[in-house]
């Protein structure tokens, strides 16, 4: 996925542990990851130190970055600094081709044009050096 580097990032930042950190580092290289369990094949996101289905240690898998809108909302009122200036904006739950769901801001179209089922692709926003988070835009 494309990696975008904004001039500055004033919004909240992730504070990942050792299990979680590789996700953000991979995203900063343009790679979107999720977890798959070698024991039971369960796929999960967000990443954890265990498989939520069977308890085994999950492994990383690489996602295509393609998916569709599973559900979403258009935020029209929010008082939090750094978000209120961007209203209205869309936050969506994306169902990836690989079956896991990821959360994120959806940009690149009018909020009113967003529909459940809309095909989207991921892009990465580097929020600090070596750490990126997925955003989404119509594919």
């Amino acid at each position, binding site marked *: 996925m494309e990696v975008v580097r904004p001039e500055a990032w004033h919004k909240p930042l992730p*504070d990942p542990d050792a299990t979680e950190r590789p996700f953000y580092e991979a995203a900063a290289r343009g790679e979107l990851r999720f977890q798959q369990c070698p024991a039971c094949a369960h796929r999960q996101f967000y990443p954890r130190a265990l498989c939520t289905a069977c308890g085994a240690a999950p492994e990383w898998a690489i996602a295509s970055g393609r998916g569709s809108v*599973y559900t979403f*909302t258009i935020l029209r009122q929010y008082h939090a600094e750094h978000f209120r200036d961007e209203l209205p904006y869309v936050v969506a739950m994306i169902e990836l081709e690989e079956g896991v769901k990821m*959360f994120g801001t959806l940009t690149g179209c009018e909020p009113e044009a967003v529909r*459940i089922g809309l095909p989207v692709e991921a892009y990465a926003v580097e*929020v600090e050096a070596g750490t990126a988070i997925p955003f989404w835009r119509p594919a």
Partner: protein
Amino acid sequence: MAARDPVIVGIGLSDYPKAPHLSTLEHHAQALQRALADSGVQKGDIDGFLCAGVSGTSDDAVMAAEYLGIRHRYIDSTMTGGAAFEFHVQHAAAALRDGLCEMVLVSYGSDFLSRMGRTLGTASFGSSRRVSGGAMWEAPYGLPLVGSYAMVAQRHIFEFGTTSEQLAEIAVGVREYAGLNPLAMYRDPLSVDDVLSSRMIADPLHKLDCCVVSDGGGAVLMTTEERARDLPQPGVRVLGAAGGQTHWNISQMGDFTRSAAQQCAPEAFGRAGVTPADIDTIQFYDSFTITVLVMLEDCGFCAKGEGGPFVAEGHLKRGGRLPMNTDGGGLSASHSGMRGIFLLIEAVRQLRGQGGEAQVPNCELALCAGSGGYLSCIGTVILGRG
């Protein structure tokens, strides 16, 4: 009825919806004083204490126990969001049956409105810029609380054809009951058009799909059937209580239309030996209109996806067969952050026949369903007239 069956013998509400003169702990104290007066219980007899959401710190329960002067033998600070008090009733019922305590206080208080102002769930919570744990995967994107419920509503509309008009009917019905409650925050009659023409906050939820923000607290006193016989109020029996969790953060909700009520409501009904058709009134956590719709389906009052038409038929309204939130609910009367205890207190009033103009005729069975987080933790309690 067995000697150690759990019974609610006292209830008290602190001042609401606006109480700038009361701190959180003063809400606890006032609600307890009123529950003691209501029940005739001696404060020194309280030996079980359950509370949540006092200050948000990990020493909540022991700090509140010290302030209130409770010498407990049993203590529990289970924190499942606004549903905590339904979980507390489940735990207290088991503790009473097991002889771990004799007289239980379940307590809540909040100065939410006086402290935070009216923010419609769009306030900025916390100031920390570094976020860890499950919230880390959402915090950078700016989704306020109302947005999580909006995502549930959006999916429900997509999957089942639910309409904004049907959701609005929930707010309209609750407002009619608020008109009968002199303390309710908003009492003027409401129409579906009023809801639909109120400002959009997070599509598809309008301002009037969202609960109010208020101050307020409550206290519930529970004991055994044996002890309840000596007390003046008719005891209200705890017939069945069960809880469950599907997620905590909204991104982990799964299919976004189903809650833990699908699992815990049947368990509560089973323990009580009754069915949804037997219930005379429901007291549901109406943080948003969609919260009610999802729990209504998951508790088995209608099939999954049929909540919209069910609500539009008017069953939840005054005069309907399943009157809901007879105190005006969170949507119109009061919501001080964790509304679960108000559900229990209003159900007890109804089962005692103290509902006044809002009294549900021949009210023998009530179901309280609390939702904590984002339909994350659901606690269901079935109460019966003594």
